């Protein structure tokens, strides 16, 4: 009798173990203390804030224009110690490289299907040690490597769909931009951020789980990018979420929360986005009706953060000091420095914010800018020339 009971018990335990689901990846999700950045939308500075009160100076880098070096649209500006890299995805489909003085280095224009070619370029990064340019090819899930002469070196398969890809030490941090095609799900939510071991191609960490929207087009984003804090620490804040994540070679973890109180975006938004027949216009209307604050265009440096947020269809600017916890919370700017630069940062490096200035604007106003912009720039500007890089240095606050 005893033996029979034992056998039956063992059988029951066996079937319990069998019923455990296979194949589900559970993230390790470390939970360090997370700093909160509180933002009260009612406390925005409504009067115009002058550039001179915020910025020490604006510097300019003029990019040469010639028929072989014509940038269509700047989809990403990557700044390093020695170079600028400009990615133009759709118009010239090229990567342009300049040195920090604005001199031409190389243009990579390799659209096509063959080896070393790309069809849909989505991200660029630079390996300082090996002096290699890396291009993320989206359709074929590859990373293509080139040297600074523009020669193709090799390619590397990345087994997951991702919009952005950032090498971090010996790992890759991927941002899928809310693509649920990777099937990395946990309780019907999918991972938006993935950390991959570069050698073994195994997942080390995942974060920012989301409910898949009805269609990808429902959740249009500004295509969040990684900001470099140091060689082994990068930051990213995907759109439609309030958490800033940091990526190291070993994990991706939440580092800051941007808290708008009752106006913070949360799972209600994602549940709505998942509803049958949902469209971008409807979810935008839903968001506006609730007054949800959606932060985007997030950049993080060693001491500052810069981002904007949208509420009720209006966009507001935030500059946040990590040291002092002070904040500039701004509705509108007034350019009292050079009258022509627009503060719309697209890159951050060494705590300076990088923006683009239209050559056409400078050309048309060059007579009025004689006292505020360098003569070199004004003398060499072309009406339809490449954009000028303008570098804003924040005053400490």
């Amino acid at each position, binding site marked *: 009798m005893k033996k*029979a009971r034992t*056998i039956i018990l063992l059988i029951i335990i066996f079937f319990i173990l069998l019923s455990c689901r296979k194949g589900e990846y559970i993230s390790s999700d470390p939970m360090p203390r997370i700093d909160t950045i509180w933002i009260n939308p009612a406390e925005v500075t409504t009067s115009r804030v002058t550039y001179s009160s915020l910025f020490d100076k604006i510097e300019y880098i003029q990019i040469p224009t010639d028929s072989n070096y014509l940038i269509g649209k700047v989809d990403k500006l990557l700044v390093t110690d020695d170079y600028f890299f400009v990615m133009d995805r759709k*118009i010239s489909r090229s990567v342009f490289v300049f040195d920090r003085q604005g001199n031409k280095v190389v243009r990579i224009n390799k659209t096509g299907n063959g080896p070393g070619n790309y069809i849909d370029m989505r991200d660029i990064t630079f390996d300082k040690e090996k002096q290699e340019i890396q291009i993320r090819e989206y359709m074929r899930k590859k990373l293509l490597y080139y040297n600074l002469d523009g020669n193709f070196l090799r390619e590397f398969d990345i087994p997951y769909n991702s919009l952005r890809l950032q090498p971090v030490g010996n790992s890759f941090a991927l941002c899928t931009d809310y693509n649920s095609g990777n099937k990395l799900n946990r309780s019907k939510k999918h991972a938006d951020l993935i950390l991959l071991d570069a050698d073994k191609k195994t997942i080390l960490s995942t974060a920012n789980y989301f409910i898949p929207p009805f269609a990808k087009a429902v959740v249009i984003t500004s295509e969040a990018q990684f900001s470099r804090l140091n060689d082994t620490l990068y930051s990213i804040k995907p759109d439609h979420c309030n958490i800033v994540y940091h990526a190291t070679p070993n994990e991706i973890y939440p580092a800051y929360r941007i808290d708008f109180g009752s106006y913070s975006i949360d799972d209600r938004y994602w549940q709505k986005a998942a509803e049958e027949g949902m469209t971008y216009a409807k979810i935008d209307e839903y968001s506006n009706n609730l007054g949800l604050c959606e932060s985007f265009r997030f950049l993080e440096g060693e001491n500052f953060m810069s981002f904007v947020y949208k509420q009720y269809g209006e966009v507001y600017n935030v500059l946040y000091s990590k040291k002092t916890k002070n904040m500039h919370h701004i509705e509108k700017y007034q350019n009292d420095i050079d009258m022509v630069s627009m503060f719309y940062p697209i890159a951050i490096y060494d705590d300076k914010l990088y923006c683009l200035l239209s050559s056409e604007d400078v050309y048309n106003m060059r007579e009025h800018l004689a006292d505020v912009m360098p003569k070199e720039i004004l003398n060499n500007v072309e009406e339809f020339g490449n954009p000028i890089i303008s570098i804003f240095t924040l005053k400490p606050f």
Partner: protein
Amino acid sequence: MKKLVYLLTIFVIVLLGFNVILLKKHQEIKAQNMLLIDKYNKLSVRELRTSSILKKNIIFHHAAEAAYCPDIQLKKPKTNSDLKLSALVNNSNEPLLFFRFKETDCDACVQQALKLLKKITEQSPGRRITILSGYKNVRQFYAYADNESKSFDIYNVDELPVIPETQESPYFFVLNGDLAMKNVFVPMKGDMEFTVDYLECISQKYWQCGHEHCNHAHNHHH
């Protein structure tokens, strides 16, 4: 008694094993059914989309042919000069096939169509297809033209006041000397079969002469 217990135990094990097998089979069948449902839904969506695109094409075809294309100024690449649409069309000794896209149109749609057009120009090098891009920024137009001018004749016009412009996709049309829009066609993303058929028809209709003769006529004109 012992025997009975053992027999019962074996019977229970067999029953449980049988249940597990049935459960797994049930899950497999369920998964297959879901796959079939999914395929059916996709097919239905595709059919709906196809019929809606075809309907749109018929509407634009008729609506556009009821109106003439205004004689607008086109921007030429690399120079800051303009050219009238009538001058461009009259300069050609045969009707011109235009591919029109705006910078806000679906990029994948534009690229798919351009890929097909490049095949045509590769197969018939004398055949020039005219791209009418819609960039608001002049530098962007120059950068685009610089990249594609080996394969096509490219001009830019910010806004083209014609009926097919109202839908947010690239489109083809044919123009001759009287600027009457003919053979308007809106390509369908992900289904290039219709576009291939359309381009074949255009080729047959307007470029019927043999390759050498067409090249000779083209060279003679220039």
